[in-house]
């Protein structure tokens, strides 16, 4: 198989300061040899908060997302994958993240999308702070409960439940 790559590299991972287009992310992974696209979109859920502040270590997060993307391509035979994650201040309903994956068949697309999402949550340098009527609170999965404000400590299970998505 020689000849030009019909799919030149695109922007594959991005920490975005502004809102992004879901359609563009999905279009970016479509290919003629793909029969399936799976997209996950995480949004800010109304948990009695006013806003969600996303802080990122942009360079490190993009580096990690690129590595996760490569792993998913190799492991699940994905044809394309795009990850866009917001930073900055978001309101209820705003999009936090999109993970869009294409594959020949549905199973790879579902499994690859899920893998990227789980690894992103675990490994990418991204932090969330809930801002609500009662004040501010960092969401730190697996973090030190002592970091939570008094009276706001929750078990890991409960804290996991707090994550959007």
């Amino acid at each position: 198989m020689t000849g030009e790559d019909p799919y030149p590299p695109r922007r594959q991972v991005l920490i975005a300061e502004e809102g992004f287009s879901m359609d563009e992310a999905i279009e970016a992974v479509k290919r003629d040899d793909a029969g399936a696209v799976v997209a996950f979109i995480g949004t800010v859920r109304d948990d009695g908060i006013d806003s969600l502040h996303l802080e990122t270590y942009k360079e490190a997060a993009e580096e990690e997302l690129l590595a996760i993307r490569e792993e998913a391509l190799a492991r699940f035979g994905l044809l394309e994958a795009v990850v866009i994650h917001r930073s900055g201040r978001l309101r209820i309903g705003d999009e936090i993240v999109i993970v869009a994956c294409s594959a020949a068949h549905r199973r790879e697309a579902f499994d690859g999308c899920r893998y990227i999402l789980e690894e992103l949550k675990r490994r990418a340098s991204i932090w969330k702070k809930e801002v609500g009527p009662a004040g501010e609170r960092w969401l730190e999965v697996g973090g030190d409960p002592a970091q939570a404000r008094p009276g706001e400590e929750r078990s890991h299970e409960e804290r996991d439940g707090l994550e959007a998505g």
Partner: protein
Amino acid sequence: MLIHVRAFASFREILGKEKDMDVDGGSTVGDLLDILASSHQGLGPAVFEEDGRVREYVIILRNRERIDSLEGLATVLEEGDEVAILPPVAGG
């Protein structure tokens, strides 16, 4: 020698976003963290277990590389290194 320190999220609120620290030649990552902990209340318990190890979900990077894959807290710093202190992540 000057070391550039970056902190994020709850650690940034304790330490400030970034700063240059002047430490002795031959200092390790552990030495730097001890200095920071002694001058910033709350940092020590947030970064370290009681036995002095770095907490499981806390990540320390030297020049954007995890110190786990270097020599941990014993990793020796060099002039101009960047050390980043990351609390547990929660993206997605």
